[in-house]
């Protein structure tokens, strides 16, 4: 009886069992971290911000072989796209030149009207261009990492745009790296205006699917194809930046197809827009 108890004790206390118990404790700790949403605390934000640069430097070196293969494949795809674009450009050259003239004359007219209405400082802002170093846009928590340095003076909540429309906003900044929270991120919320009548709503990221606009009172007046732009409410984003087009309407659920495709971009613009600063 005593012999069997000793054997059982030895089995419980052997190194293998102790490691197993230790692994369970660490697992439980990880689950608590996850469920407790530790990343929302200020300590976690600081930790993430400080460690991102270091982890980026390490991972950049470690992932160098993958990077070489990836860039090789990307170059072939890019080359194919350039040929395609050249072909399209040749076809549309005539129509493009007339559209360009229209846009220029329209911009001049807008500038004249704004001057007549005494609209000035609110929409004046410059931008800095930053290179994308990592793209996690195809994940449900869509983000990208961009290069930053002290001379560029990036700040949290800086609006990020592509050549034609808005992409998201800066969520964290470090000495070398900044993270941009994209519009498709499930945590993203953006005040928008829909159509020329400026129906107001909030666009909510849906992960890998197109974002949707909610809280629109006049949703019955909205049609597929209407332009969605930033409303400027909230003060983070400037108004009148193109977001996308209404792609489908299902009751009060308005789906928006974004104008910018992050996977096609290598650089982004960061707008030096501070609503409060302009008001001061």
């Amino acid at each position: 009886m005593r012999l069997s108890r000793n054997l059982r004790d030895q089995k419980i206390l052997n190194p293998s069992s102790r490691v197993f118990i230790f692994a369970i404790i660490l697992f439980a700790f990880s689950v608590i971290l996850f469920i407790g949403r530790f990343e929302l605390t200020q300590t976690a934000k600081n930790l993430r911000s400080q460690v991102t640069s270091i982890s980026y430097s390490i991972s950049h070196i470690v992932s160098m072989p993958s990077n070489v293969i990836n860039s090789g494949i990307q170059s072939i795809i890019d080359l194919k796209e350039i040929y395609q674009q050249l072909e399209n450009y040749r076809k549309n050259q005539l129509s493009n030149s007339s559209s360009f003239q229209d846009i220029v004359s329209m911009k001049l007219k807008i500038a004249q009207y704004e001057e007549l209405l005494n609209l000035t400082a609110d929409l004046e802002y410059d931008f800095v261009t930053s290179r994308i170093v990592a793209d996690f846009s195809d994940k449900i928590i869509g983000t990208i990492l961009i290069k930053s340095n002290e001379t560029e003076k990036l700040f949290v909540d800086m609006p990020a745009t592509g050549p034609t429309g808005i992409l998201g906003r800066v969520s964290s900044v470090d000495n070398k790296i900044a993270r941009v929270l994209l519009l498709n991120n499930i945590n993203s919320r953006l005040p928008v205006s829909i159509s020329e009548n400026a129906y107001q709503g909030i666009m909510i990221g849906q992960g890998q699917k197109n974002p949707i606009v909610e809280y629109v009172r006049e949703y019955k007046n909205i049609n597929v194809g209407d332009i969605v732009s930033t409303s400027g409410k909230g003060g983070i984003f400037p108004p009148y930046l193109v977001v996308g087009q209404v792609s489908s309407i299902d009751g009060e659920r308005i789906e928006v197809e974004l104008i910018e495709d992050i996977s096609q971009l290598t650089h982004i613009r960061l707008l030096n827009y501070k609503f409060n600063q302009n008001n001061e």
Partner: protein
Amino acid sequence: MIDLKIGNLLIYLILFFTTSSNLVFSSTYFDLTLISCLIIYVLKWNEANWFICIILFMLGIYNDILISTPFGYTSSLFLFFYLIDRVGNFFSMPSNTNIKFIIFSLFVLILFSINYFTIYFIYSTSMPFFVNLASYMAVILLYYPLNFIIGSIQNKYVRVK
């Protein structure tokens, strides 16, 4: 005792490389976090080495920082697959690859369901079902090839048991 033999360092390096590749490789159909889980599951670990648990925990946190997932998510996954491997070994199944494969597939599908329903109920949105399932199915399909490759490497270079 901290076990830092060359063979074990090679294992840690493979996992570190896979996790770091998240930075340059992004695909809808291949989730590197899930592939790391598969590697952890098929590896033959030294069962008396507590340092492995810390390494897996730290790698998880590193992955969370890199891809901006909530803290503790990847660590839980890594340690979970390590634990189910240990439980399988405890019931004397390490040599039966088919049973290990069935257990792995089952838990991967459970994980997919949990992820899907969590996002559905908490964020009131749904992930594209088949697109997301594809990355989980890809990792299940990779089980036998990876098991063969890692088994060959470990039999050749690593003597952990």
